[in-house]
C-alpha cells in the first residue's frame, strides 16, 4: 500500500475527497479574511519557541498544522487584547460576511453579503473588563480590587515563565534551546515540561486552530477545511424558507435532513481501535 506521509492511500483519498467536498461550499472557496495584524506579546525567540511547541501538538502533515494556521497569532492577540479598544476578547456579530443572505424567492443563496461584524470586537462591561484584565494581566493589575477574581496569575506571565521553563529543560537535558532540537528530543522535553503550562498551550493551540479566523488563527479557514467543518454559516445557514412554495429548500451539498452526499462511511483501523478502547473504558458497548 503506498503511503503518503504516514497515512495509507485509502485514507489519503478519503481525506482529499472530504477536502474537495468542503471546498465546494460557498463560503470556503476564495475566502478572504482581512485580519488586522496581532499585537506582539513575544520576542522573536519566544514566538519561535511557542511555534515549535504548537507544531508538536498539531503538526503539518497532509494538511496545515498549527504554524500555518497562525496559532501563535491567536495567542499573541489574546495576550495583547487590552492594547486594542475595545479589548480583543469577543468578536462582534451577527455575521462574518463569509456567507450571503438566502433568497426566499429562488430558494438559493443570494448575491448580497452582510458586512463583516466579526472583524471588530465588542465593548466589555465594567465587570467583564475586570475579569479579562485579571485573566490576561493578572489580578494584581486590576485597580480597585478584583473582587472574586483576586489571586489570578495573568496569562502573559504564565507564557513568559512557561516558555522560559521549556527552554531551561531543553538546555538541561540536551544543552540547546528548544527550537534547536530535533522533534524526537523536543517531544522528550515536553514530556517533562510543567504539566499545567503545557495543558494551557494545548488548549490555546486547538482554540487557535478551530476558532473563527478573526481571532488570529485558522488562517484562510485551513483548519476548518481540513476537518470538513463549515464553521459559521449565518445568514445563509443550511435551509431557506421559500415563501412562494411554503416549503424549505436545503443546501444540497450540506444537507440538514439527509446523509452527506457521496460520503464513504466508516473509520480507519487506528480510529476504530482508539474508539473501542475509549468506549470500553467508559463501560460502553460495541454493536458491530
Amino acid at each position, binding site marked *: 500500500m503506498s503511503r503518503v506521509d504516514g497515512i495509507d492511500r485509502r485514507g489519503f483519498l478519503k481525506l482529499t475527497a472530504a477536502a474537495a467536498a468542503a471546498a465546494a461550499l460557498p463560503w470556503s472557496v476564495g475566502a478572504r479574511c482581512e485580519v488586522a495584524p496581532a499585537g506582539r506579546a513575544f520576542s522573536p525567540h519566544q514566538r519561535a519557541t511557542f511555534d515549535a511547541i504548537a507544531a508538536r501538538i498539531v503538526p503539518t502533515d497532509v494538511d496545515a498544522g498549527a504554524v500555518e494556521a497562525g496559532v501563535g497569532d491567536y495567542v499573541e492577540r489574546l495576550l495583547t487584547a487590552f492594547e486594542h479598544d475595545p479589548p480583543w476578547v469577543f468578536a462582534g456579530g*451577527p455575521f462574518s460576511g463569509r456567507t450571503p443572505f438566502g433568497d426566499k424567492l429562488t430558494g438559493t443563496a443570494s448575491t448580497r453579503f452582510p458586512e463583516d461584524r466579526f472583524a471588530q470586537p465588542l465593548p466589555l462591561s465594567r465587570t467583564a473588563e475586570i475579569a479579562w484584565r485579571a485573566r490576561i494581566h493578572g489580578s494584581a493589575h486590576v485597580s480597585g480590587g478584583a473582587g472574586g477574581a483576586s489571586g489570578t496569575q495573568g496569562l502573559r506571565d504564565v507564557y513568559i515563565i512557561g516558555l522560559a521553563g521549556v527552554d531551561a529543560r531543553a538546555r538541561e537535558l540536551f544543552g540547546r534551546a528548544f527550537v534547536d532540537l530535533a522533534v524526537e528530543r523536543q517531544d522528550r522535553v515536553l514530556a517533562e515540561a510543567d504539566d499545567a503550562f503545557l495543558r494551557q498551550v*494545548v488548549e490555546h493551540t*486547538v*482554540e487557535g486552530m478551530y*476558532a473563527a479566523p478573526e481571532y488570529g488563527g485558522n488562517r484562510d479557514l485551513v483548519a476548518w477545511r481540513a476537518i470538513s467543518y463549515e464553521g*459559521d454559516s449565518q445568514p*445563509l445557514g443550511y435551509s431557506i424558507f421559500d415563501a412562494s412554495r411554503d416549503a424549505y429548500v436545503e443546501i444540497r451539498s450540506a*444537507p440538514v435532513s439527509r446523509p452527506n452526499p457521496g460520503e464513504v462511511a466508516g473509520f480507519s483501523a487506528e480510529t476504530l481501535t482508539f474508539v473501542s478502547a475509549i468506549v470500553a473504558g467508559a463501560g*460502553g458497548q460495541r454493536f*458491530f
Partner: protein
Amino acid sequence: MAQPSRVPGVLGNTGLHDFDAIIVGSGAGGSAAARVLTTNGRRVLVFEAGDNNFPGLDDPRPDQPVPVFSNDELKMSVRGFVTADPLTDRRTFRPDDRSGDRTQVGDVNGLPKTVGGGAVHADMKYPRFQATDFHLRSLLGDIAGANFADWPVSYAELEPFYKHVETIAGVQGEDGADPFASPRRTRYAMGPGVPMYCGLVASEGARKLGYHPFPLPSAVNSRPYRGRPACVDCGFCSGYGCPNNSKGSPAVTFLRDALLTGRCQLRYNAPVARLLWSGRRVTSVEYIDPSGARQQATAPIVILAASPIEDARLCLLSDPGGGGLGNSSGLVGRNLMFHYQVLAAGIFPQRLHGHRGRSVTHGMTDFRGVPGDPARPLGGIIEFGAANEAIFEAKTYALLLNQRGRALKRLMRESPLRDHLMALTMQGEDAPQLTNRVDLDPAVRDVYGLPVPRITYTNHAFELSAREFYAPKLIDLLGAAGAQFAFIAPPDTPSQSRHIMGTLRMGTDPRASVCDASGKFHDMENLYCADGALFPTSSGYNPTLTIQALALRVAAAIVAADAPERALRE
C-alpha cells in the same frame, strides 16, 4: 410610538420616572410579567444584572434588533460571552453540610447573565408539563427524604397561559404527535421545521423498539412569524444566542413587546443588591449602577424573576442577621432542583452533521413514566441530539484523552466524537429535598463585594434509580438506530444542567411554602415571584415554557385578580 433609548445602560422609555411595578430580572419570567403589565397600562421598571446584546431591542423598526450573537464557538462556549463569569460572578458548591464550608468555587450551574436571561442560550424546546406533574405528592405519597408537594395550580388552570406563551413566542410542533401529552385545546402556531438527520435516525431506532418519537415542540420559527424570519438551521443553537431572531427568545418576543408599549424602562448592567423593607412591605430596591455606585428605585409592587438561585440569594441579602426576607417558613432557598440529565452517546459509521440544524428536532416522552408504576418510573423527556463544536471536540481528544500530533489530526479529520456522535439526553426529574438549597457563602464574595450563593446539593435515590433504570434502554435505542458504539457519559458534579427550579416554592400553607398560589410571598404584601423559583416540583420536561406560563399568571392576577385570563393581550 416608542422611541429607542439614547441613554447608555437603559432600554425603553427613559422619560418614565414613576412606576407601578419593579421587576428584578429580564429573563423568561421577567419578560412575560413585563408584557402582561405594560399591555394592561402599567408602567414597569425592569432591572437586569447583565449587559444588553440586542442593540435596537427597543427600536420599533422591523429590522430591529440586530443582535451581536454569532455562530462563534470561541466567543459563546469557550470564553463564555453571555454566561455569568466564573471569576467575577463565582458561586460555591458542596454536596452536603458535612463536607465543610465548600468543596468547589467557580461556575455552579450558571445561567446567561444578560438582557433576555437564561433563555438567551436555550435552543427553546417548549414542551408543556403533563397534568400529573402538578399533583405528584398526591400520586406518589410519602417518599423518604424527598419533599414532593402538589402545585396550588392545575394543568387546566395553567392552560390558557400555556396557550398565550405559545402564541406570543411562536411554538412549532406536530398536533397529536405525542401520545403521552396531556390534552391541548389549541393547535401549534406552526408545523415542525426541517428535521435533523440525527433526529430521523434516532427516531427510526425508537420506533423499532416500540417507542413513540415525535418532533419536539420548540419556540423556533419554522416559517416567518410575527415579524421575525424563519430559522435557517445554522447549527449554533443550544448554548448560543440567535443571530437572526428566528428563535422565539423571551427577549425578542415578550420583552420587546413590553418595551415598544412605551411603558417599560429596562436598566441593564444594574444588578439588584438588596430589597429594603419595613414590616410586610418592600419599600425600595437598591441596585448597583453600571459605574459601580449604589442607587435606589421604588414602586408599589416588586416582582422577583432573577432565576431561583439569585432570587433566594436576594431574599437572604435583604435580611442580614435575620432569617431572610419573607422566610417565616424557613424554606427560602430550600427545595432547590436541577434536572438529573442522563446522556447516552452513540458513535455511528456515517456522519450525522449535528452542526447543521437547530440542535434537537426530535425526541420522545416514553421515559417520562407513570406516577406509581414501578415498571415505568418517573424519568423525563428524551432529546435526540448530536454534536457541533470543533474546539470542544479537539479539547476532548487533546486534553481529556491525551492525543497529540498526527493522532490528534487524524481524529479531528475522522471526527468520531463530533460528526459521528449522537447524544440522547434524558431530562430526569429531581426530587425536591429540604437539604438541597441555596444560602450565602460565609466567606466568598463576588466582584460587587456581595456574598455569593452557596449551593448544597446531592441527588436523591428517586432520580439516581431512574437513571439506573433508563440508561440501559438508551443504549439499546442507540443500537437499534445503527450505532456502532454506545456509552453513558459520567454525570457532572455539580450539575451543569442549566435547568434550575425551586427555592421559593408556591403553596397554600404558609408553613410549607414561601409564596401563595398567585406567586405573592405569604409574608409580604407587595412582593411576588414570577419565575421557576415557584416550582414545588421539577417534572421531567424542559422548564422554560412553564416558567413563562406561570409568570404570565402571576402578573395577570396582579392586573385582574378575579379573571386573570382577561389580562392576556395579543
